[in-house]
């Protein structure tokens, strides 16, 4: 597959709000089941180990017309649950036999209840990710939650709970995470080679493709990128912070880069890399999977920050790791985690001398003029006054 073909395939998957590829996968063999999950983090290994296809449901983007979804949500709630309800009530998610709702915020938490009522024939589970500072207790709790989820999904799929299969799935997703990290590193090192639009589409494809296929596609893309000899532009390097749940429209990502900001790190589709290290494939796989989340997850607004200096340090650390010139706080309107975190993160950025700008978007934002202007001005200001 050429790079162009890969990107085209990923784009088709991204734009397909009917999840045709998932339908095809389910239909290919009798008894196959697909399980959806909402942002930010769900243990896909468990789903995969039950022979099911994990499917990321990241909203309806800017191409879905909301007809039914608005009837369930007041105007002061973010856009994501409207489009997810729209997808659900319009039959577009009918290929899914279950839905997992991680504890990203109260809106997604309560959406699990909406699903329990509207889709009472489906398997619906709220994933209460462990929070706090007592890592031993958190690990024990999350291990138990993983076991329950595994038991439930195995029953749904008609298979046995099998530790060996889970280890195999863990190994597979270790490879997926390694690949995603390599893709992010490739962009960080040579952003001109890896346009964020492409990386984003690739990551979104990884949310609906079987992991085995994603590995093939992603590795081919990475190989192609390394052959690319495009020249770097005199752009600024920025980290996007806050866009971890409701996703920005593709047009917004493109707009930022066209306005002169190379995105060198971001929060998009964060769940695919939130575990920062490989999960051991020996020992008790549930304990290991839980341990990786409890001890070695990326810092994110969805988790309680136990370290009193953590919030202040975070932006500086991320900017340094990405060798970025500045940070763009991009949060969905009415997003509690991102917007409540913003003053703390921004104070940390200011204290560390990391320049930043802030704006809000919705997944269906249709006009980018204001973002273009802000990002363009930001990039120019960094180049004029920044340390480069």
């Amino acid at each position, binding site marked *: 597959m050429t790079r162009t073909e890969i990107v085209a395939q990923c784009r088709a998957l991204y734009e397909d709000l009917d999840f045709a590829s998932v339908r095809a996968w389910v239909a290919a063999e009798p008894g196959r089941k697909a399980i959806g999950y909402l942002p930010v983090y769900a243990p896909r290994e468990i789903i995969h180990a039950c022979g099911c296809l994990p499917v990321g449901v990241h909203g309806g983007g800017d191409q879905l*017309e909301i*007809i*039914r979804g*608005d009837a369930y949500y*007041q105007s002061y709630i973010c856009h994501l649950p409207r489009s997810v309800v729209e997808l659900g009530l319009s039959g577009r998610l009918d290929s899914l036999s279950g839905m997992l709702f991680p504890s990203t915020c109260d809106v997604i938490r309560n959406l699990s209840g909406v699903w329990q009522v509207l889709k009472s024939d489906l398997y619906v589970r709220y994933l209460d990710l462990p929070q706090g500072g007592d890592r031993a207790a958190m690990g024990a709790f999350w291990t138990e939650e993983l076991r329950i989820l595994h038991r439930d999904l195995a029953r749904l799929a008609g298979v046995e709970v099998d530790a060996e299969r889970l280890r195999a799935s863990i190994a597979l997703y270790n490879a997926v995470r390694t690949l995603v990290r390599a893709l992010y590193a490739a962009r960080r090192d040579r952003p001109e080679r890896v346009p964020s639009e492409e990386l984003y589409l690739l990551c979104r494809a990884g949310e609906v493709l079987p992991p085995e296929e994603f590995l093939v596609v992603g590795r081919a893309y990475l190989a192609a990128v390394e052959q690319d000899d495009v020249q770097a532009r005199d752009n600024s390097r920025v980290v996007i912070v806050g866009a971890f749940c409701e996703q920005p429209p593709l047009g917004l990502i493109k707009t930022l880069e066209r306005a002169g900001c190379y995105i060198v790190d971001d929060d998009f589709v964060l769940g695919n890399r939130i575990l920062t290290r490989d999960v051991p494939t020996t020992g008790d796989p549930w304990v290991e999977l839980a341990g990786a989340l409890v001890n070695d997850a990326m810092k994110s607004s969805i988790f309680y920050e136990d370290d009193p200096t953590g919030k202040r340090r975070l932006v500086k650390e991320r900017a340094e790791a990405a060798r970025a010139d500045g940070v763009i706080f991009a949060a969905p309107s009415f997003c509690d985690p991102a917007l409540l975190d913003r003053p703390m993160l921004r104070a940390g950025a200011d204290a560390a001398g990391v320049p930043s700008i802030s704006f809000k978007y919705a997944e*269906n*934002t*249709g*006009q980018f*003029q204001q973002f273009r202007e802000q990002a363009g001005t930001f990039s120019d200001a960094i180049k004029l006054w920044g340390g480069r």
Partner: protein
Amino acid sequence: MNCFLGIDLGSTTTKAVLLAEDGSILGRGITNSRSNYDLAAKVARTEAYVTARFGLLRAEVVRAAGEPVLTHLLLAFRTEQTLRQLERLGVHLLEDLERAIPADRRAAVREAVEHILARLAAEEEAWFADPAREARSDFFRDVAASGYMRIAEQVSEAGGPSFDTLVGLFDKCILKVENEPMELGFQEHIPAALRRIGSPEAVALGVERATNAALEERNGVGTGYGRARLPFPKEQIRSEILCHGLGAHAMFPGTRTVLDIGGQDTKAIQVDGSGIVVSFQMNDRCAAGCGRYLGYIADEMNIGLHELGPLAQSSNRPARINSTCTVFAGAELRERLGLGEKREDILAGLHRAVILRAMSLLARSGGVQDEFTFTGGVAKNQAAVKALVRLIDENYGQRKLNISPESIYTGALGAAIFALRDVRPDVH
């Protein structure tokens, strides 16, 4: 005869409907709302009585003298009302300029105002005499303002006092005219109106009977945005939602779902077989998706509100508009126009977006049942109607759609029925 009054005190217009004891409509009146709510209600009520008395004499006059004479009489009546109000306007203008205009310029201003007033009166006479007269607004404010501005502009261009001076006077005085009690009723003006058309013998009896008919107002109910300020006891005040539901039911007895999109708010109402509201939803404080949103768009495009619909209907490829935020409406419009999108496509998209907001309120209130009645200013917009019909069709299946040309009276009609029902619960 006993009659029953319903008054709907809205944010822009105040409406009155008068019912007979059998539930039939005797008369309707409308006026622009103003700071003096009592007076707005009184003017609408008076108008309802005027049309009621014209209704009473209609059969007699038409039989005795023919339809054209009746029309002529009504016209004469309107002219008498207008002239009377112009007189009052004149009194206020001349009084006001004595106080407001410095002595050195006073004479010139007085002269200009007198000139304008004379021409306005002459124009009113000419309008009455002109068989090819153009239709005009029912509201004195509109009639007086358009004429006054036009003449004032000519006067100032010809070296008279400045346009701003003249308009400043007018703005103050039209408020006074609107907010002072004035007799505009049938009995006051019908004699002059009769004289104006030559007092034909054939209509005398009918007019006399209509003048003397005893219309006894047994009960009245008030509703609408400003209902709390109506001079009615609490038991005689009803929510506009209830009145709207009942009024829609009265106009179209098969109604089960009502959508009202007005300037400031949108309501989705479900009613039962008797017109009783069983569920409703209103928009929140955000004005997105209300008629006002289309108003902003029209302003932004510098075209009339009534031109929006036809323009939107000429689109073959409606744009997808995701936000109906009134605050961003202008910016979004400009950006899209800047990107080369066609005006009509954007407009078609905007109409669809407004209707989508209404669809969510409808869904919240319980969906769209058969029959479906659409009321409010936006119901007059064909592009909006088209978008609505299509979305209902796609999401609920085919529904019988009712739109009444008199839909502005829906709330007042419901209120009048409540007034009737409070006294005569037996009347069906």
